[in-house]
């Protein structure tokens, strides 16, 4: 029988919604689903995880060493629990990408990255070549399956009617001190979070400056949307790096994605393929973004974006 352990991602005492998406993935695998909360003060996060439908049990580990999500500190703790499970999952966010390969190597097993479909408990589909191909892999028989879950492929698990039990655990393994957290410079704003927002407005190189990017923020605010960007816009310093959408940035699946002054390079498109509706505004009628846009509008963004904002206000 399958037994999955999901490593919860959390920040500032809040469970990241990416964890609820892993629960949906684990439900497809079938069997019991436990969620592991490693934290200094795990109570609130554990309660949030326990209230997700499909979760059998939450394992709550309070340890001052867990105050920051350091892969080198978390990995030996996950490994210590691994023997009880057939599958170990975490979201394919920077948290899970950092942690899970370390866990897999400690266990001496391969990892499935960016799991997008479950065929059965041992066969999984994942994207390669910036999403240009989908690969089905079989994991070796008899080995623990370690995977990161491509969150854009899975819905968030619903709220449970009855919360799952929470068990406090202490894990008795030596934890390294060679890795120390110094600080986090957060781009956090009052705007919706890029990874979970229902609407996203993104700007590209065409914006030309950080100052010009204000029209993207203004449109986003009118729509109640999160703001994203192409790599070119981030590289040029118009916006912080955590706004990058694409192969090497965030993979997102909003209901509405508005791409403004973005050409539609394959590395960008792979980050938005699962969006419900894609709108593109570009002055070049031949821009590749129009090949995947549901609604395309050709013209100068500096004229069209303020006009669109006014029409929606």
């Amino acid at each position, binding site marked *: 029988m399958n037994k999955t352990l999901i490593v919860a991602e959390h*920040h500032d005492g809040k469970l990241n919604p990416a964890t609820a998406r892993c629960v949906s993935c684990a439900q497809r695998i079938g069997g019991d689903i436990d969620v592991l909360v490693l934290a200094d003060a795990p109570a609130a996060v554990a309660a949030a995880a326990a209230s997700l439908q499909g979760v059998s049990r939450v394992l709550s580990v309070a340890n001052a060493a867990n105050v920051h999500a350091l*892969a080198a500190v978390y990995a030996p703790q996950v490994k210590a629990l691994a023997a009880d499970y057939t599958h170990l999952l975490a979201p394919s*966010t*920077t*948290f899970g*990408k*950092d*942690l*899970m*390969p*370390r866990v*897999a*190597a*400690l266990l*001496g097993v*391969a*990892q*499935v*990255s*960016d799991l997008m479909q479950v065929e059965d408990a041992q*066969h999984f*589909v994942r*994207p*390669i*070549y*910036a*999403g*240009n191909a*989908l690969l089905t*892999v*079989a*994991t*070796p028989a008899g080995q623990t399956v370690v995977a990161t879950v491509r969150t854009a492929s899975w819905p968030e698990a619903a709220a449970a009617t009855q919360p799952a039990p929470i068990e406090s655990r202490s894990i008795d393994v030596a934890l*390294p001190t*060679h*890795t*120390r957290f*110094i*600080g986090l*410079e957060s781009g956090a704003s009052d705007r919706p979070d890029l990874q979970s927002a229902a*609407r996203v407005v993104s700007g590209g190189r065409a914006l030309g400056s950080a100052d010009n990017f204000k029209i993207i923020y203004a449109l986003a605010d009118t729509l109640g949307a999160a703001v994203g960007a192409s790599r070119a816009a981030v*590289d040029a310093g118009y916006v*912080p*790096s*955590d706004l990058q959408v694409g192969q*090497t940035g965030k993979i997102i699946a909003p209901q*509405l994605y508005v791409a403004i002054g973005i050409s539609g390079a394959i590395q960008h498109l792979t980050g938005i*393929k699962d969006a*419900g*509706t*894609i709108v593109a505004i570009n002055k070049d*009628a031949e821009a590749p973004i*129009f090949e995947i846009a*549901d*609604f*395309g*509008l050709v013209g100068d963004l500096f004229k*069209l974006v303020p*006009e*669109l904002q006014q029409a929606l206000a």
Partner: protein
Amino acid sequence: MKILVGYKRVVDYNVRVQVKPDGSGVATEGVKLSPNPFDEIALEEALRLRERGVASEVIVVGIGPADLTVHLRNGLAMGANRAIHVVTGDAVQPLTAARALLKLVEKEQPGLVILGKQAIDDDNNQTGQMLAALWDRPQATFASKLHIDAGKARVVREVDAGLETLEIDLPAVVTTDLRLNEPRFIKLPDIMKSKSKPIEALELAALGVEPGDHLEATHYAPPPKRGKGVMVKDVAELVAALKNKGLV
């Protein structure tokens, strides 16, 4: 201090790869191959550390078939002191790559290993973390700034929440993100110079590594296509279309 740099050859990022009609793989015959962009950034960072006097030697490592030497010459032309070629028939998966790198780490005793955060062919994003685990040393993934001082590295990491700074003891593994640096271009005289630099070839088996614990690739498929959309003539038409779909 020595720095070991992973230097993988991949299908160039501009190539739109096609899945073979029978689903047995992607068509790679005749397509342009290039160094993995993240590995070029890794090599550039190592070269800068050597130029600043922090490192004394930069070694590029490639794992792959016999014809990889041409690719490794590129790394030497960019400025690496020497290259190690781990010779394998087939492409290896991250765990095997990490096991091979560990053997080289034990042999070379580098103070730092810099790898790309991911290779843009299989997009796995695993090898650096796996090496750090097997080596039982710190990892700092997705680096966009690296500062080394007194046996420690201060690394700024691009994480989902913003920019995180870690301090790690050396030796350690760092994986690069895009904004760590801009790799230099190779000049003609450098290509000439690279010809006299050594490339050491080692069989994977001779390192004591057997490829194993592999994922088996059972099927390749093209991604589902999004239906072709419509062009609207102006903002009014766009707003009407969005309203019609209940999106605004």
